């Protein structure tokens, strides 16, 4: 506060002296006070997890760089946030540094025109090739990882599994059999949690099945991007995701309050054993760490099973990344680059380990998983060790239809049959491809 008022006094004083000086002052920008101190802004999403991580990062960074101050800004995530990002970038009013998805959502920001190319930075050599690919275009590399990779798979309560003597399923039929047994003998434990109060959570049956699609048809993602009629959601292997979701609904395996349950409520139910299995992104373990810290060790994870055990693989998401807006120049750009570098230094890794609780392997050699990481990280590592992993589609193709979450809510609520939902999604994908100006659509 005192910082602001001092600056305000200065501005008033200068304004009183002459209009010319005032013009010079405003041209200099708000952050520079002339003694080498720089202020940059950092934008992240407004949920608790992201905000707390950003605060911890800024605190550590400012302690190491006393002449740089970082101002935290937040905005909503999801499609609303996507739009704000695009508007801010296209009007040059984006914060200096910001946190956002990698992969297809990044491509929609038109990075070549709007972001600073970071391919010459030192930390780039530490990154995995998979991650480099999802923050790059043909012309440059734009993002540094923030957080570890994570899986989109079935998180399950180990206590419920032990009590009922269940085995980890490797085929879809085994998964259904397990769920039927939980329904019959679980004393009211919900076999499969669904939480359509947060519509985005409904997509996991489809998105988390993608490693299984790739296992059956390694070329699928490429054909899908090229509008090959053989790679559509109405046909197998990709149709399985929609069909599975409908089957689980038809067999009454969801929690009773699935239409209005939120993601946080579902995580609570999973942690306390009120629900047994939840197809979800493992990064949400952060919610359990925050709200039910005693239950973190009870949560395990297994891949959404394919029809055949040989095809079952776990779908992996690349972490989000930190980017610098092209509107950032001069001292601020140097400060921003320092900030990004710091996030990927060993101090930055400490902040990530302390606040973000890795839910999968890191994508940079600069960071290592701590010993007290959540138990499910070991489950994911086992899939990596046996080579049974595959990337989520949004990291293999720039096209992700924006209406998937509404379509999967309709399929998972029995409003739309799986075939119709898959066909609607194919149309949605087509629209997105045309908007991106891809060839062949």
């Amino acid at each position, binding site marked *: 506060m005192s910082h602001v008022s001092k600056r305000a006094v200065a501005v008033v004083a200068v304004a009183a002296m002459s209009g010319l000086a005032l013009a010079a002052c405003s041209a200099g920008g708000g952050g520079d006070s002339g003694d080498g101190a720089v202020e940059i802004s950092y934008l992240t999403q407004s949920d608790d997890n992201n905000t707390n991580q950003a605060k911890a990062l800024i605190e550590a960074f400012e302690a190491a760089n006393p002449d740089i101050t970082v101002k935290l800004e937040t905005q909503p995530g999801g499609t609303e946030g996507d*739009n704000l990002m695009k508007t801010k970038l296209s009007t040059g009013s984006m914060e200096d540094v910001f946190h956002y998805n990698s992969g297809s959502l990044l491509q929609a920001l038109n990075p070549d025109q709007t972001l600073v190319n970071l391919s010459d930075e030192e930390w780039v050599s530490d990154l995995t090739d998979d991650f480099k690919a999802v923050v790059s275009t043909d012309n440059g590399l734009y993002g540094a990882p923030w957080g570890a990779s994570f899986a989109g798979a079935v998180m399950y309560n180990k206590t419920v599994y032990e009590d009922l003597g269940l085995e980890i399923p490797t085929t879809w039929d085994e998964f259904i059999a397990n769920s039927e047994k939980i329904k019959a003998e679980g004393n009211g434990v919900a076999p499969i949690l669904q939480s359509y109060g947060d519509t985005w959570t409904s997509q996991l049956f489809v998105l988390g099945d993608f490693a299984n699609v790739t296992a059956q048809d390694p070329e699928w993602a490429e054909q899908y991007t090229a509008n090959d009629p053989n790679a559509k959601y109405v046909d197998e292997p990709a149709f399985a995701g929609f069909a599975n979701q409908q089957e689980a609904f038809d067999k009454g395996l969801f929690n009773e309050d699935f*239409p209005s349950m939120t993601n946080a409520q579902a995580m609570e139910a999973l942690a306390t054993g009120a629900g047994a299995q939840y197809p979800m992104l493992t990064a949400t373990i952060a919610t359990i760490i925050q709200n039910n810290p005693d239950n973190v060790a009870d949560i395990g994870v297994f891949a959404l099973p394919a029809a055949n055990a040989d095809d079952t693989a776990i779908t992996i998401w690349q972490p989000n990344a930190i980017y610098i807006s092209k509107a950032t120049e001069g001292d601020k750009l140097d400060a921003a680059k320092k900030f990004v570098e710091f996030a990927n230094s060993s101090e930055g890794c400490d902040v990530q380990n302390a606040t973000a609780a890795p839910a999968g392997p890191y994508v940079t050699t600069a960071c290592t998983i701590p010993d007290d990481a959540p138990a499910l990280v070991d489950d994911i590592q086992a899939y990596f060790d046996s080579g049974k992993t595959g990337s989520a589609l949004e990291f293999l193709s720039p096209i992700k239809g924006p209406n998937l979450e509404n379509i999967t809510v*309709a399929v998972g609520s029995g409003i739309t049959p799986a075939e119709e939902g898959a066909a609607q999604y194919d149309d949605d994908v087509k629209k997105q491809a045309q908007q991106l100006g891809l060839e062949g659509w």
Partner: protein
Amino acid sequence: MTTAVAPTGAAPPATRTSKTPKGRKGMKSVYPSWFYIPAAVLFLIFFAVPTFSSFYFSLTRWTLFDVQFIGLDNFIQFFQEPQLVTAFTNTFIYGFVTSAAKVVLGLALALLLTGPILGRGYLRGVIFFPVLVSTIGIGFTFKALLDPFHGIVNNVLGFLNLPQPGWYTDPGLALLTVAAVDVWKGVGIATLIFMAGIVAIPHEYFEAARMDGAGAWSVFRNITLPLVQPATATVIILSLIGGLRSFDLIWAITKGGPGFTSDVIASVIYKQYQAGFFGLSTAGNVILFVVVIAVMVPVSIFLNRKQDEL
């Protein structure tokens, strides 16, 4: 949305100025012409330019970063939207249901509140109060109250052993639930307009009717109802326009869900905008503008003609 508002807002001054020379011959405008410039500039910058540029952008594929002219493809695409039929049907259901309910309830409440009852001033305030509250606030409040599993309404119903409907999660009920909340919020305005209309009816008519032995129903049917016709027309037009372009309450309560079952045209457009289909959603706004005009002009002409006949 601005596209829908701008031309209607512009119309009245235009007709008024064009009538003046005819009506009062030889009389020049009271103000010098430069007096109009500030208003004209504001109108041009904030209404005319956006309206016409939106017509242009509706013909493009627009990513905010660059623009590609694609002719009428957006309109073709918009009409191929799978949700469009649902959205159109829902828009009309929503518009007509809320409009009809506001007329009936508003008139009934106005009759009550212009009558000799205890605490009339207080009751008038209570009826009008929801109009003053933010729509989004009302949406979130009702979303909490009507939560199918943890909301207070269903808890009470469950306590009384009554069925507990999934107010906004049941696909068949979601739209009507939102419409009911909309009526609760908007009926205050309708009541106010009807009260003004009723109070304006000369007292002599009622006295004469009573002299002739007319009962309460007959007085209502033959005096009040025909003579509040201008108020009825206003309420219908206002609530129908509001209903056809309604968005905020639907978005706050259901976001068009579950699935697409409570989508209206405005929420489909908003989702397209959210998805970054800026050209497509602008085309949708142009279509919504045309639809609202196409519905409202005949309704308005019909109601005004009826008014003239009186």
